[in-house]
């Protein structure tokens, strides 16, 4: 199943997965995202960096319409996923979110067993035909999230009983199990220790083979380590977007430079 998808993707390696056009976001009267245009590539890790409150999470959440859950939030402009506008009236956000998964800053496993946490997505989307297939999906998702070894003997134990880092990896496994095309991660490592962080970073690198990954991070080093593309946000504007090496070595905008050298933020 996965192999076929892999084949498909090999054909056009760096095609555009998500394309945002003149995106504006308002929370009531406050203008949180201003005129953002960005092309996010397939099979690439894109990092969003910027000072706190600049709108990284806000913009990330527009990509799978999680903003719909905030009543005062208003989005304008177009966001195209494979050329289709996800804010089109015909689009059901539920269908969209099955294709664009999300991992949140704070680990938020369901108060259910580890197995049920991972199996939930495949179950509601009808991705498997029987228990054996579901078991397989759960196992492979947990393996991808580098959690399988730690939990394989206690799949029925509650997911909330894991350590913070394990919980976050469980959430990643849960997101991966639905085999989304894009994975959005909002500061996935902020609750993790260096070892777990390294594991997750490794995982992100592996995920790149199958998914387009967008990660919000406050750690410059992390952005440099895992991403190929970096976008720098400042006060609701997308200031600079380019290859990670270029952004970190010779940023073209003075604001980017002062941020990555630690002068603003």
């Amino acid at each position: 199943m996965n192999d076929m998808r892999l084949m498909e993707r090999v054909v056009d390696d760096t095609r555009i997965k998500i394309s945002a056009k003149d995106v504006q976001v308002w929370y009531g009267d406050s203008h949180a995202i201003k005129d953002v245009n960005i092309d996010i590539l397939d099979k690439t890790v894109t990092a969003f960096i910027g000072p706190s409150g600049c709108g990284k999470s806000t913009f990330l959440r527009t990509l799978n319409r999680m903003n719909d859950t905030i009543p005062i939030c208003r989005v304008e402009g177009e966001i195209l996923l494979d050329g289709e506008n996800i804010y089109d009236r015909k689009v059901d956000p539920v269908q969209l979110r099955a294709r664009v998964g999300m991992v949140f800053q704070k680990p938020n496993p369901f108060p259910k067993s580890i197995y049920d946490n991972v199996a939930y997505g495949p179950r509601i989307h009808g991705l498997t035909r029987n228990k054996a297939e579901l078991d397989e999906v759960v196992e492979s998702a947990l393996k991808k999230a580098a959690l399988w070894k730690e939990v394989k003997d206690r799949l029925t134990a509650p997911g909330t009983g894991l350590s913070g880092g394990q919980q976050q990896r469980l959430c990643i496994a849960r997101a991966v199990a639905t085999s989304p095309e894009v994975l959005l991660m909002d500061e996935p490592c902020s609750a993790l220790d260096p070892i777990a962080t390294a594991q997750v970073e490794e995982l992100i690198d592996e995920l790149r083979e199958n998914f387009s990954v967008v990660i919000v991070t406050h750690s410059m080093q992390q952005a440099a380590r895992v991403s190929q593309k970096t976008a720098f946000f400042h006060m609701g504007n997308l200031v600079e977007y380019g290859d990670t090496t270029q952004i970190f070595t010779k940023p073209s905008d003075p604001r980017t430079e002062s941020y990555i050298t630690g002068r603003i933020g």
Partner: protein
Amino acid sequence: MTAEATNIPAPKRRSLYQLDARTRRRNASETRFRAYGVAAIAFGMIALAVLLWSILGQGLSAFTQTRIAMDVTLDAAVLDKSGKRDPVELAKATTLAYGKILDQALVKQATDKGLMPEGLSAKDAAGILSKEAPAQLRRMVLDNPALIGTTVQIEALANGRIDGLLKGRVTMESAKLDSNVSPAQLVLAQNLKDAGLLAKSFNFDFITAPDASEVRPEAAGLGVAILGSLYMMMIVLVLALPIGVAASIYLEEFAAKNWFTDLIEVNIANLAAVPSIVYGILGLAVFINFAGMPQSSPLVGGLVLTLMTLPTIIIATRASLKAVPPSIKDAALGIGASKTQTVFHHVLPLAMPGIMTGTIIGMAHALGETAPLLLIGMVAFVRDYPAAPPEGFLDPAAALPVQVYNFTRRADPAFLERASGAIIVLLVFLALMNVAAILLRRKFERRW
């Protein structure tokens, strides 16, 4: 930064072993507050203890009843003149006939054993039997006509005053002033008691029998009231829980937040504060006068109580839905669950303990509610058990709290004991419901 701090004096260093004045004051106020708390709780506990003590003291005796053991010969010539044991014919023998048989049996037994006090007429001696006793004997015979012609050993209900003698309510002195009982009758009762023929025994009839008339406190029971209350609770549960939960879920998770939903919210809060008697008036106007439903029926009572309970359930449910962490909802939505799936798979299970508790507390309120039921006619004197549901929902019935009210309105002091006994039954039901609430909470609560 260093230059600014100059005009604030540096804190003096002191030994940690010495309490400074500020700490001492703080500790004193903490101790004071603890004392207030303990006092408040003590006050509550004392009030509860006094309440329980007085109710148990007055009401426990309702669970025992004085009966007179005697041998009764069921004379076929009197009870079945045709001799065919035809039920229709048998039914023609009235309680009057049975009364005579009972009276004779009692007098004969007392005389034979030499227990009759001087100067007590046969008629007065028979007066220590309850007026309900013949009816009970008649029911027994009609149920089993084969008894006719035999001699049966029965335990006949004693009169309420005689019962009072054994429970300490009636004394020789009080009997002298009492037109319902004479000292000689008390002597007879005492003699029978000494002979082991008259004794108190557990009173199942108090729980199962229907209410009895003003002059027969010894026969009054709670059967119809318990059934009526039970039927009403069934109706409340079946209507209020789904309606309340559905309304809460809609308001909390689906409805747009605008002035209209705000208005609804305010109104629900107000409804919870509406005096219950208003619901009674509403029930009378809408269900009985307009919709033509039968008076004093559990259906109408249940509907009124449902209306009354709904706001409580909605408020409790909304509170427990609100308490579900939004991160769980985000997690579900984030992997593509629909709103309904999110609510039913994740939010509702987590809110379940709160919903259960809210529902049971609401139902406990409804169980103890009296005022609205008075208005819809449940105060009526009902001796017939309602049929089994669902037809029984339309039959007249009483309700436990209303039965308490009814008992207290009657003149005979024996009804006071009955009223307290009914309160005990009511309290037991409430306690059971609270235990159920706790158990359900435990069962549904996920501690992870």
